[in-house]
């Protein structure tokens, strides 16, 4: 028995150059079988290029892309065991829903029996809850329905890996949330690897088993969503995934005190001494009404803005001598919310201060 490949997709020092521009630079990454992985990054970070190299629409300038353990250099898209859900769906406008979905099956050689094609097509449509829509023209359907057609058209081929290029970008917020849940359950049901490209951190965090954060053609961190959020490896990741408050200062000898520019000292969990940028999540801060105490780690300030977010309240607080900080408070904790102009006191646990060498 030969050992089956553990990874569905593997990049071995893959680079992609467009003329002078290095879009992807020396990426090494492995996507384990059956995982839901989100490639997250700002536009132009090379994430779509990575996806297109897996699909076979781009060839790496250097390195090798492996699918299911097989090197894919020079293999054209139509011979790769992956399928893609394109941004804006790229449905065939001259074909009806059924013909769109069965397109891949009808390309198979040797041919699949007509009845079998019809059966699998119907199953795929059923799976995306478009049972009665087989004979519709695609332009007669809403954005959300077109999205499902695109999904059905891809999964009907039972690919080893499903590639999704910003699949939810064109949908409105409510539909997007619904589709996030559906995509997740679809992935569990099918058990195939999903690789999703997105610039929306919320989408990446909510759906995937692993988030792969990219910046400037490189992978910065690949980890489960919670780890990416709680223990970002770099300042970039911390900034890109979630809201942040930044503080610059120096960790003093001993490594447990962060001295800020104005001389204020904050306690930190053991760090290497030196100049640092510290990051504090808005929801890790506790806001108390009233005058600031005289403790050295206290941050006293004045509320400048209060933004109602529905399930939470966000405050902008001008800290004396430090500038503005964002604080998110649960609504339950904020039944009696602070008013703009009011004096408040901010505090936080030392371990919630994320410290990065400057």
């Amino acid at each position, binding site marked *: 028995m030969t050992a089956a490949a553990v990874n569905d997709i593997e990049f071995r020092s893959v680079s992609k150059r467009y003329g002078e521009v290095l879009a992807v630079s020396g990426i090494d990454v492995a996507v384990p079988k059956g995982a839901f992985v989100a490639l997250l990054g700002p536009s132009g970070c090379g994430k779509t290029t990575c996806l297109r190299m897996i*699909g*076979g*629409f781009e060839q790496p300038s250097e390195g090798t892309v492996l699918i299911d353990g097989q090197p894919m250099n020079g293999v*054209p*898209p*139509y*011979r790769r065991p*992956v*399928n*893609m859900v*394109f941004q*804006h769906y*790229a*449905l*065939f*406008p*001259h*074909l*009806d829903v059924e*013909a769109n979905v069965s*397109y*891949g099956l*009808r*390309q*198979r050689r040797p041919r699949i029996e007509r009845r079998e094609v019809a059966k699998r097509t119907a199953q795929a449509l059923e799976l995306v809850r478009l049972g009665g829509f087989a*004979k519709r*023209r695609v332009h007669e359907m809403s954005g959300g329905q077109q999205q499902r057609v695109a999904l059905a*058209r*891809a999964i009907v*081929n039972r690919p080893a890996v499903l590639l999704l290029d910003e699949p939810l970008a064109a949908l409105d917020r409510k539909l997007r949330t619904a589709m996030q849940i559906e995509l997740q359950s679809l992935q569990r049901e099918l058990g195939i690897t999903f690789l999703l490209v997105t610039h929306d951190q919320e989408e990446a965090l909510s759906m995937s088993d692993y988030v792969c954060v990219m910046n400037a053609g490189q992978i910065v961190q690949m980890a489960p969503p919670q780890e990416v959020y709680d223990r970002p490896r770099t300042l970039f990741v911390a900034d890109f995934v979630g809201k942040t408050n930044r503080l610059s200062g120096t960790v003093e000898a001993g490594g447990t005190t962060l001295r800020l520019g104005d001389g204020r000292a904050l306690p930190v969990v053991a760090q290497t001494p030196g100049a640092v940028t510290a990051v504090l999540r808005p929801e890790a801060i506790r806001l108390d009404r009233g005058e600031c105490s005289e403790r050295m780690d206290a941050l006293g300030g004045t509320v400048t803005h209060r933004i109602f977010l529905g399930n939470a309240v966000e405050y902008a607080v001008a800290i004396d001598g430090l500038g503005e900080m964002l604080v998110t408070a649960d609504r339950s904790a904020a039944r009696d919310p602070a008013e703009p102009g009011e004096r408040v006191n901010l505090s936080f646990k030392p371990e919630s201060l994320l410290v990065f060498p400057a």
Partner: protein
Amino acid sequence: MATRAGTRHRFVTAALAAPAALWMLVFLVLPFVAMLVFAFGRRAPEGGYLPGFTFEQFLNLPARAAAFGNTLMLAPAGALLCLLVAYPVAYYLAVKAAPRHRLVLVSLIVVPFWTSLLVRTYAWMYILGSRGLPNLLSTIGLPDLRMLNTPGAVLVGIVYGYLPLMIMPIYVSLEKLDRRLLDASADLGARPVSTFLGITLPLSLPGVMTGVALVTILLLGEYLIPQLLGGGKVFFIGNALVDLFLQSRNWPFGSAIAVTLVLVVVVVLTVAMRIAWRFAGTRRVDLV
């Protein structure tokens, strides 16, 4: 208030449409009515037209069957030949050529239009004439070949003269084809040939139909090419009309032929377009 705005709007629309309507009335409708009247009239002894109402002219139509036959055979054949040559060119221009070269290549196709078709067709007379290509072929030992004044010569002239008119609409429809559809097709396992037959070709059919209709309609009235490259032997209805109106001055018979041609064109095109659109509009254009 709304009615006054509506009246004014209608007045503006009418004013804008008036020049075109007047033009069509004077140069299309009135001549056509005149032709209808002539077609049912009699020929004056010295030529020209005598009023009357008779079907005599239409009963004479079989006398010009050859002209009808040539036109109805060679015009669609020429259009199809044009299509076969034009499609690959349009495909190359729209899909394969680098965008920065496109403008140059497209203008290369249009530039010959700056010279009169008459002059260019004359050039073909020499190329296909006995001192042209046949002469060249016989010097390398091939048997003597007559090229000029054959249906083949007329077809060559047609393809040469009408090619740009066929390339342009096809180019336009291929140019606006969404490239992501081709990626999607390949992603779903379609080989390049299948992608072409299943996606590219069906989506470019509107351009193809426009080109074929345009060229066919123009060819049905063609006069110059059969005159120069067909000699007296391969002649179109256009040539017969010139002959009847200007040489033998048989206006009623000429009118009858012209009216019949218009009717044939309308019927043929209606049927052809109906079939073509039904084909393109089917839920599944599956040529594979």
